[in-house]
């Protein structure tokens, strides 16, 4: 169990980040990570790979999906503005804070399957193959979801710019 402590403990901050970004609920996400760690402790001897990172993200992801599905049927009402302050840490500057917030809102609007891929592959630094393993899908599916997520975020960003007053003044022939 000492090797478990050594290998899993450094991953806990990343697990919290992934859970919180998926659930958008700080306390709920930490409960989920606790649940995940307890399962990991109970099943440590049954893991297969030498790299425990993909293994523990798989446990967490499955718990998160179960939680999201069950809360979708009985939604919890969190006002987004209240939740944001609590859920995401403050950015270093106000301008950054605004940009971060816009981006996180756009990420939150992504379909759940695209969001998972984007977070695992770009934020948590899992390889595409590991991401495919965590989600239980072929690697081609990971690539197409990643592609769609990135395209959509770019479009939203450009769409926001297009909506600015300057653009509306452009004359149409």
């Amino acid at each position: 169990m000492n090797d478990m402590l050594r290998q899993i403990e450094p991953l806990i901050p990343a697990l919290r980040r992934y859970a919180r970004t998926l659930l958008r609920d700080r306390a709920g996400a930490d409960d989920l990570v606790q649940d995940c760690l307890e399962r990991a402790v109970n099943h440590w001897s049954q893991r297969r790979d030498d790299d425990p990172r993909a293994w523990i993200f798989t446990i967490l992801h499955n718990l998160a999906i179960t939680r999201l599905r069950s809360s979708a049927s009985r939604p919890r009402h969190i006002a987004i503005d209240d939740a944001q302050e609590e859920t995401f840490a403050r950015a270093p500057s106000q301008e950054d804070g605004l940009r971060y917030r816009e981006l996180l809102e756009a990420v939150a609007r992504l379909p759940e399957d695209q969001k998972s891929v984007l977070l695992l592959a770009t934020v948590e630094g899992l390889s595409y193959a590991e991401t495919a393993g965590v989600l239980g899908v072929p690697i081609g599916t990971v690539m197409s979801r990643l592609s769609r997520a990135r395209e959509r975020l770019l479009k939203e960003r450009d769409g926001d710019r297009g909506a600015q007053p300057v653009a509306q003044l452009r004359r149409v022939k």
Partner: protein
Amino acid sequence: MSGRPITEEDLHGFVDGVLAPDRIVEVQAYLDTHPDAAQRIAGYAGQRSMLRAALAPIAEEPLPPNLDLARMIAQRSRPRPISRRALAAAAVVLLALGIAGGWTLRGPILAPQEGIAAVAQEAADNYAVYAPDKQRPVELRAADRAELVAWTAQRLGRPVAVPDLAASGYRFMGGRIVSTAHGPAALFMYDNDRGTRLVMLARVMQGADQNASMTPHGSGSINGFAWADNGLGYSVVGPAAPDALHPIANDVRRQLSRNI
């Protein structure tokens, strides 16, 4: 230059920094001559670093007390402390039970299980022994399927087909002959992409339950479904919820009944 065409996957790999050094050079050369792609990739890269920066503070927060892994591990390996009084009370109850039970039963205490209840127990026992095995979960691998089927037929005196569970996401790993209180049994093992293993145990029924409808068994995380058809008893066991396991067991039964 390898001359291999640049793929969409290369472009994402470039953004995520997972390409081999010489491929990076090739992608860079491509982007230098394709400004549209270069602009898109710059957009992705900007998004990526902004998203990482926006979410980095969460990983820097101090951990809350309920995520103390060292304590979780300690709690698991050490039984919870029990008060002296509770211990004394338990001793009294156990003593009373022992006396009463010993007097009442006076005969064989554990009635040996029969029928598919026994098959269920044997499958669960063999699952517990072989499924967690890292060295040698199966004696004959999937590649030696023909040999395994022949071995099974010889030891059981009846052929048992290998069900195909690909539709449920499980691959056939292989199998072995195992011993049970009711003679030899075939144990086939499957796993999925997440490393979850299932077993199917089959053996000849002796006496009761030559045919029996499907019955769930198991407790907690390991579950199973047992049944018997034409004198062969089966059980499918795995660490899945009964809801998830039931359709797999039905599929196995359907395939096996087709082969009889």
